């Protein structure tokens, strides 16, 4: 690499044919070409899947898509791209201190982007909008609720009865009381467990016998009975730390939606992280930053613009556009 760069940087007569740009920059452009195809595949798949699905979750109440957060992120990325340009300009002016500062600004904005992104992700994880976890109809939603009740019950059981035994052994132990030389069970928690156990069993039996429906009324509101059950568990201090159940929100085609969302934003975020590593290498140079880094900053700037560009496509596609 150094060899070919030398032949350009110096005033020696050019000895090769080709374009008047350094190899590294040419290579970066070509690499970005492959990257474009990479994201094109994702975007194309997204469009095909979305247009090919009779329903697509688009209500932000269900999907927990934060348009505002995405909008701010768009702005953040564009601003950071601008700072990279300024940094490169400063490099060409040989004002390395200034360049470093702009670069640091870019880095801060990149962190900000990831911060906002993680807030968005957190909201989705919190509501269990995770590929493979989403119930797509009432039946699955109820089954999921039963599972969540039961795993909460097991979690509470594990908290009460120490040891590695399986849940059923522990349940029988709970009935017979602690063995010799073992600490007594917390009576409050035992009472809470019985409450949860009863509630969980009732729910399971009701679901099994199809005596409970998820939605009621003309508006298809969520059955208040289910909500009150959830509320009862959540408001119980003793149960609450062990109780992890989500409001049952069946989402038709929710899994494909969540998959495409996480795939595209996830791979974009990975690219952001790679860009940050490149900037980090520059920032680590500190005062040693000199003109040998001009190409590096230009190339990583190119890469960063590409990352920005991808987001500019992803944002409307994922957050705004309604294909009707």
């Amino acid at each position: 690499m150094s060899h070919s760069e030398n032949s350009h940087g110096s005033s020696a007569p050019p000895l090769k044919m080709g374009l008047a740009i350094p190899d590294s920059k040419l290579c970066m452009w070509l690499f970005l070409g492959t990257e474009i195809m990479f994201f094109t595949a994702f975007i194309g798949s997204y469009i095909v899947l979305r247009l090919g699905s009779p329903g697509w979750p688009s209500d932000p109440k269900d999907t927990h898509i934060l348009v505002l957060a995405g909008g701010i992120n768009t702005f953040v990325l564009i601003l950071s791209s601008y700072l990279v340009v300024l940094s490169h300009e400063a490099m060409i002016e040989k004002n390395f201190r200034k360049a470093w500062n702009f670069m640091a600004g870019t880095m801060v904005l990149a962190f900000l982007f990831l911060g906002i992104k993680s807030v968005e992700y957190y909201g989705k994880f919190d509501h269990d909008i995770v590929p493979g976890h989403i119930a797509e109809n009432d039946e699955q939603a109820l089954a999921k609720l039963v599972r969540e009740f039961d795993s909460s019950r097991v979690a509470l059981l594990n908290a009460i009865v120490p040891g590695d035994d399986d849940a059923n052994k522990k349940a029988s132990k709970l009935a017979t009381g602690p063995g010799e030389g073992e600490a007594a069970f917390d009576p409050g928690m035992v009472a809470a467990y019985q409450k949860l156990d009863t509630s969980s069993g009732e729910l399971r039996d009701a679901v099994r016998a199809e005596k409970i429906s998820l939605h009621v009324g003309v508006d298809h509101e969520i059955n208040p009975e289910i909500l009150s059950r959830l509320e009862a568990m959540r408001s119980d201090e003793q149960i609450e730390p062990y109780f992890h159940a989500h409001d049952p929100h069946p989402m038709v085609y929710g899994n494909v939606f969540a998959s495409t969302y996480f795939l595209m934003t996830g791979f974009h975020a990975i690219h952001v992280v790679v860009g940050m590593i490149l900037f980090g290498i520059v920032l680590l140079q500190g005062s040693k930053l000199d003109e040998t880094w001009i190409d590096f900053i230009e190339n990583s700037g190119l890469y960063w613009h590409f990352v920005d560009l991808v987001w500019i496509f992803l944002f409307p596609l994922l957050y705004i556009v309604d294909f009707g």
Partner: protein
Amino acid sequence: MFVSSPSSVTESNDESSGEDGADASDARTSELADTSSGEGESESYRVASYDPASRLLSVVNENGVPAQLSVAKGDNVQILGPALQEGRNLYLRHCMHCHGVSGDGAGPTAQYFKVKPRDYRQGVVKFTSTKANVPRPSRDDLFRIVKLGVPGTYMPSFMLLPDEEVHAIVEYVRWLAMRGEMERKLNAWLSLDYSKEAVADMEEPAEEIESAFAEAWADEASDNITQFSEELQMDWQEADKEENVVVPPTERVPPSPESIERGRKLFQGNKAKCASCHGLTGKGNGPSTESFNDLPGQPGVKSDKAGLFDIWGNIVKPRNLTAGVFRGGRRPIDIYRRIHSGIKGTPMQAFGSTLNKEGEIWDVVNYVLSIPFENKQGGH
């Protein structure tokens, strides 16, 4: 009827023979000629030799004395040797890679299945037309399973194999089953005194144990083998008897809404307790799928895993009746037989004696057959 005797298995009674496929390839297939003249008693002879070219057969009677076959024109003589050989070839081609050379249900392909291929070696087959107290399947049952497959499992339908080939496969499968049973019986007998643990506990030198074993073998083997083969013969002949086929006393009660409603009550009620396994709406999610149940064949011994087990040690799920897939066949008579004599080897019991009132089983059959459509209309 005709029987292929498994007596030749005695030569491979060591423990490994179950896995050793090559053994089965020798022409040690037992050959037994069987004649039956009309409704009279059938006589059995062993084949001493058979020359396929001249198609000449010489036979010996049960004492090994060369005998003359007394057959009249029109008698039904069936020679199972060649059929077994053909069945073996077909079995190796179509069945072996799942069911294994020895019929242990552990062929090379089987390791990938969620529902394991049948292990014949206990002589038990799930879907039979025979009564609950008849432990073995009839030839017709095996024939039907091979022809139609088992929907919902990897057992495909061999509908288009010619009937003769399917018959040959059925013979060979029966032979494999008998061979497996014979081995089990011999093992059970020998392991009384000569199991690994028993031998390890003995204080005599190895040679003495060996000679004692040889003595015991010489004394008792012949009798035991004869006894075992007679047992086997009886069991398997029993299954082919016409009187052991489940035949409903009355014809099917028309599937009227009333009948279906009666069926639903029985299904969900306490008399038959279908719902305890199959769930109140037949989804196969009854409470016993999550509780700890007795192991099959060992009353009082609870399993340490929740769920229902079959005698092969697999967890079985009660059928989800809403899917409209019936492994043992979807004809009313098939469902009737499932309810009447249960599914052998599984926790599905025989309800023939419980649901003994006129037409009760038919009501349940009607209800079961209506479940897939009931849910379709009531669903979302």
